[in-house]
C-alpha cells in the first residue's frame, strides 16, 4: 500500500508507454505502406534502392523532368538543375527583378500577380522550349 501510494506516477508512465506503443504500431504500418508506394513507383526495387536510376538522376535533368519544379525553388537552383544558361529564364520570362537569379518562383508569381501554378507552368514551358530548341 505504501509503495503504491509513493508511485502513482508509475501508472502514468505505463499509460504513456501504452499510448506510445499504439503510436509506434501506427508508424510501422505507415512505414510499410510508404515502402510499397515507393516500390510501386519503382524508386525502390526488391533488392533495395534502384541504384542505376539514382546514379543517372544525380546528373542534370531534362525536359521530361520539369515536374520536379516547385514554387520554393530559386531560378539559380533551376538553372543548375537543368544546366541552363544563367540568363535564359530571365530573358524568356522577362524578369526585371534585380535579385534574379537568387529569387524564388513564388516571388516571381507574386510580382507578376499570377498564381504559383501558373508561374511554375511558365518556367516549365520555357525549359521545354530550351530543350526542344537544342534538339533541333
Amino acid at each position, binding site marked *: 500500500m505504501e509503495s503504491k501510494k*509513493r508511485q502513482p506516477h508509475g501508472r502514468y508512465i505505463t499509460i504513456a*508507454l501504452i499510448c506510445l506503443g499504439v503510436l509506434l504500431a501506427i508508424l510501422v504500418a505507415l512505414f510499410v505502406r510508404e515502402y510499397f508506394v515507393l516500390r510501386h513507383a519503382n524508386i525502390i526495387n526488391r533488392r533495395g534502392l534502384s541504384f542505376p536510376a539514382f546514379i543517372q538522376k544525380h546528373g542534370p535533368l531534362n525536359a521530361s523532368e520539369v515536374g520536379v519544379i516547385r514554387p520554393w525553388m530559386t531560378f539559380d537552383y533551376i538553372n543548375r538543375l537543368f544546366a541552363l544558361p544563367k540568363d535564359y529564364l530571365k530573358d524568356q520570362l522577362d524578369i526585371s527583378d534585380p535579385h534574379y537569379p537568387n529569387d524564388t518562383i*513564388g516571388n516571381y508569381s507574386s510580382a507578376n500577380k499570377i498564381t504559383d501554378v501558373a508561374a511554375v507552368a511558365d518556367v516549365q514551358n520555357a525549359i521545354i522550349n530550351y530543350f526542344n530548341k537544342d534538339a533541333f
Partner: protein
Amino acid sequence: MGSLLNVLLSYLLVYRYAALAFVVYIGAVGAPLPVNEALLALGAFASQGYFSFWGSLALSIVANCLGDLTGYAIARRYGDRILRALHIRKARFFTNLEEELRSDAAITVFTTRFAGSLSSVTNLLAGLVKVPLSTFILYDFIANVIEPGVALGIGYVVGNYWDDFSNFFTIIAGIVAVSVIMFVLIRMQRKIAKKYG
C-alpha cells in the same frame, strides 16, 4: 510538402549556409522546425552540386551542438530560479526524471538527440541537474554527427528523388523518436519499481 518546409527550403536556396546554420541552431534550441526534412533536401542539393556535402555536415554539427549547449547553459544558469517560481521542483515525476538523468547522463543525452523535441527538453534538464559539461558535450557531439549525417547522406544518395523519400524518412524519424522516448520511460519505470519495491 508542408508550407513551413517550403519556406525553409527557399531560405536555404537564397541564403545558403547562413540559413542552414540559423535553421539548425534554432531547431536545436527548441523551435518546432522540420530540420530533418530540410537536411534531407540539402543532401539532395549537395548531390546536385549546389551545396558542399562535407561543409553542410560540419556546419550542421556545429550549429546543432551550439543550439543544444544554449538550452543547457540557460537551464544551468537560470533553471533553479524558474523552477522555484513555478513550484515544479517538488513534483515527483520531475525528481524521477532528474535521477534518471543524473545516473545515466551519457546514455540519456545520446539517445534523446534522436527523439525530436525530447532533445530540447533533455538539454534543459541536463543543465538543471548540472550534468558535467564534458559529458554533455561529448555525447551530444557524437549523436549530432550521426543525426544530420544520416539525413544528409540519405538525401545525397536519393538525389532528385528526395521529395518522394521525404514521407518515408519522416516516418522512420518518427519511429526512432517514439522508440527512444519509450526506452527512456521504461528505464525510469524500472528505477521507480526498484526504488519503491
